[in-house]
């Protein structure tokens, strides 16, 4: 076979020149955009959170207020209990026939209180956790 006289550039030019004519639109874009609209509509809508009704907001605020009031009441009763206890202690000591004698207990004797303090702290933390 004789070697071809075609140069690379000539063949490239020939191939480019043989490219088909551009395809006319002929309604293609319009039909495609109808298909695009249909496809866009068939997509599942993005789930947005439902708008919250004012009455629901009001109920939530009332419930929050009640929780707050209950906690404040609990604190007031606790503080009142401590004060009353202290007063009773002072009164009992003052009225005792043998007079007042103060004696600080030895350190090991306080150890017995620690489980009670720990239990109280845990109970209080649990209440706070539930309220949150």
């Amino acid at each position, binding site marked *: 076979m004789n070697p071809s*006289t075609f140069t690379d550039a000539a063949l490239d030019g*020939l191939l480019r*020149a*043989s490219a*088909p004519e*551009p395809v006319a639109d002929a309604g*293609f*874009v319009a039909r*495609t955009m109808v298909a*695009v609209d249909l496809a866009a509509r068939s997509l599942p809508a993005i789930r947005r959170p439902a708008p919250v009704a004012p009455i629901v907001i009001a109920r939530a605020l009332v419930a929050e207020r009640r929780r707050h009031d209950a906690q404040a009441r609990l604190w007031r009763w606790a503080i009142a209990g401590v004060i009353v206890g202290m007063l009773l202690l002072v009164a009992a000591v003052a009225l005792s026939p043998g007079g007042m004698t103060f004696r600080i207990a030895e350190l090991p004797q306080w150890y017995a209180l620690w489980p009670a303090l720990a239990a109280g702290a845990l109970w209080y933390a649990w209440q706070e956790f539930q309220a949150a």
Partner: protein
Amino acid sequence: MASDETESADWLARAREGDRHAFARLVRAHQSRVRLQLRRLTQGDAALADDLAQETFVQAWLHLNDFRGDARLATWLHRIALTRFLQHVRRPRLPLEWREPEAETANVPAHDPRAVEGLGRDVDRALQALSEIQRLAVVHCFHLDLTHAEAAQVLGLPLGTLKSHLDRAKIRLRELLDAWSPESAT
């Protein structure tokens, strides 16, 4: 050209924000090349090619935000079109094997090189003499005006493999279209 690309980037940005008119402009700008590509892939079945082109643009609209912009939009669209075609014919990828076509299809008749209208027909017939992957390499590089790198990306081939297919295709085409060479015309 630069202003076209700027304008196209503007349409793309607006289409990404949901502007369908901007997307319609992109479709108008790219429809011809995508339809030509699919007509080649479907062996000239214009109706099927148009259906696949429409699906290509619908897919492009639905996944417009996935387009990262590290390639030209045309390259991305051609890639979607090819994928859509392969899904249609239920093939996972293009055939990569070297396949010589039948001898009779390679027979390009003699012609008058001055007949310009005959060029397209003769090149078409010569392209039929190539293997499918060679034909697609030629079509994507010369008819769709993609760079070698872009054509490789569209066809899912390594760049070296694409160039190898192109070289083999050109050797064959040089033989088949020898009558169109400038030397023959003189």
